[in-house]
């Protein structure tokens, strides 16, 4: 089911030597990202985790060409990120569902297909199968306001997958949902990932969520935004509610948490570690 013809031998996403500097209002400069190197292979599920201000969302937006790097390169499917965007190689899900009030559920899902110019019958089929995928086909004719927050976010996932993208970018998609809904949707995203074979890059604040979903967890620290460590998650698939009770799951959660606190990071830059720790203490990571 994955986007055909794009299984290039190299990584799907290749971030090389990327720096991102923001000019602040007072004329200052913030290093949002410093020296980022990251390769993401086909069919991987990679989470970016870190405290507020570590640049994880910025990194996601760089991959999606919603912003461009100050220096360095972002290559997606072997081409510049911009070309990948114009080729509609990826779908995106934000923290807010960003559904259009004036469109029904099915019309919202159809939006990217309309933009691409997919013919009507094919479009309808595609919308139907996407709504089946997120188990919302009974709600096709509803308006967004008639749905719960979790259902709205599922519509937005269906929309992001409508064009069969090879990469799905998700920016804290479940950050605004309650814990129960979040866990249910985590299971659902795992299923969708396995069914579609889409590469997923997933930004989150939640350690359990990152561990449960990912094949790799990229731990980042703020000021300047850096990759501290990449942790492989070797939990067997499919992961279920039982996975959440295994010893290995807890070990991995502890590992991610301690990396976030900077305990295991052998670094000469004490300041960066201290600042990461302070941010944790402020409860920025939930």
């Amino acid at each position: 089911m994955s986007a055909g013809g794009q299984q290039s031998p190299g990584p799907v996403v290749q971030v090389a030597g990327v720096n991102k500097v923001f000019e602040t209002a007072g004329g200052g400069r913030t290093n949002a990202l410093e020296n980022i190197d990251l390769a993401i292979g086909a069919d991987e599920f990679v989470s970016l985790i870190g405290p507020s201000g570590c640049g994880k969302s910025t990194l996601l937006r760089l991959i999606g060409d919603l912003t461009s790097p100050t220096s360095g390169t972002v290559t997606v499917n072997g081409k510049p990120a911009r070309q990948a965007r114009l080729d509609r190689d990826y779908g995106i899900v934000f923290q807010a569902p960003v559904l259009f009030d004036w469109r029904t559920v099915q019309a919202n899902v159809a939006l990217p297909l309309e933009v691409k110019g997919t013919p009507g019958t094919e479009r309808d089929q595609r919308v139907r199968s996407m709504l089946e995928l997120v188990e919302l086909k009974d709600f096709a004719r509803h308006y967004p306001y008639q749905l719960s927050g979790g259902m709205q976010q599922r519509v937005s996932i269906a929309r992001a997958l409508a064009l069969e993208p090879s990469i799905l970018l998700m920016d804290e998609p479940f950050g605004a949902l309650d814990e129960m809904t979040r866990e249910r949707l985590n299971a659902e995203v795992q299923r969708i990932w396995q069914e579609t074979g889409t590469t997923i890059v997933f930004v989150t604040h939640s350690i359990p969520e990152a561990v449960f979903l990912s094949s790799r967890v990229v731990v980042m620290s703020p000021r300047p935004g850096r990759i501290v460590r990449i942790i492989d998650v070797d939990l067997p698939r499919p992961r279920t509610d039982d996975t959440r009770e295994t010893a290995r799951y807890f070990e991995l959660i502890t590992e991610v948490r301690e990396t976030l606190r900077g305990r295991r990071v052998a670094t000469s830059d004490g300041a960066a570690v201290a600042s990461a720790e302070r941010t944790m203490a402020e409860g920025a990571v939930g």
Partner: protein
Amino acid sequence: MTAGTAELAGPRRDPGARLIRQVRGQAPAIVVFVSVLVVWEVGVGALALQSFILPRPSAIATAFVAEWQTLQLAARNTLYEALGGLVIGVTAGVLTAFAVSRWARVREAVLPIAIGASAVPIIAAAPIMSNWFGILNPFAKMAIVILLVYFPMLINVARGLSQVEPSALELMQASAASEGQVLRKVRIPNALPYFFTGLKVCTTLSLIGAVVAEYFGGSSDVLGRVIVQSSSRLRFDITWAAIAITAISGIVMYVVALVVERAVIPWHASQRAAES
């Protein structure tokens, strides 16, 4: 209808029941309105007020019927000025709003002036318009209406076209949407509620503009002149009747705008609140 519909508050319900519910919803307003009329009628008698101070509602109703020929002709002429000005002014305001939201340079040049101009008591320019277009030319009154409605329309629609959620634009960007597609699929639907907010204000404004512009002279078969002339003859029953027909015209225009709004943007939060 799908199985899921029953569980949720659907937008479609029995229209007959809805009408009854709406009328019932208006009941307090109707009761107050009728009470005011009764108190007015009885109070004028009890206080022995002269009819040139405050005529009874019954006297106004009598004048309304007796002067119907004059009033309906005047109302028709005034509505022609108001509606003509409204259509031209709204169209011009919307077109300018598109230009303003499309080109930053135009926005920087036009918006401050528009916001300033909307604070100017434009009605004061009525004698100038009569001078330019001729005192008997209905367009002299339309011009005032155009000026009155142009700026609120421009500001409202420009706001609706440009104040789009940034993530909605990013979503379109991620789908590699063209600028035209963003306009059609995001900006215009987003601007519709703003357009109707502006339009509802402008229906009322257009009538005020036309009637007040008429005070400054011109054809006598218009509501503004009927009001001025009847009051100078101390026939305040006719004045009140003319005010009543002006009010009714304004309410009808407003309600038409409201009905169109409901039909066009049933998905908008303001409409959902109105429904429940």
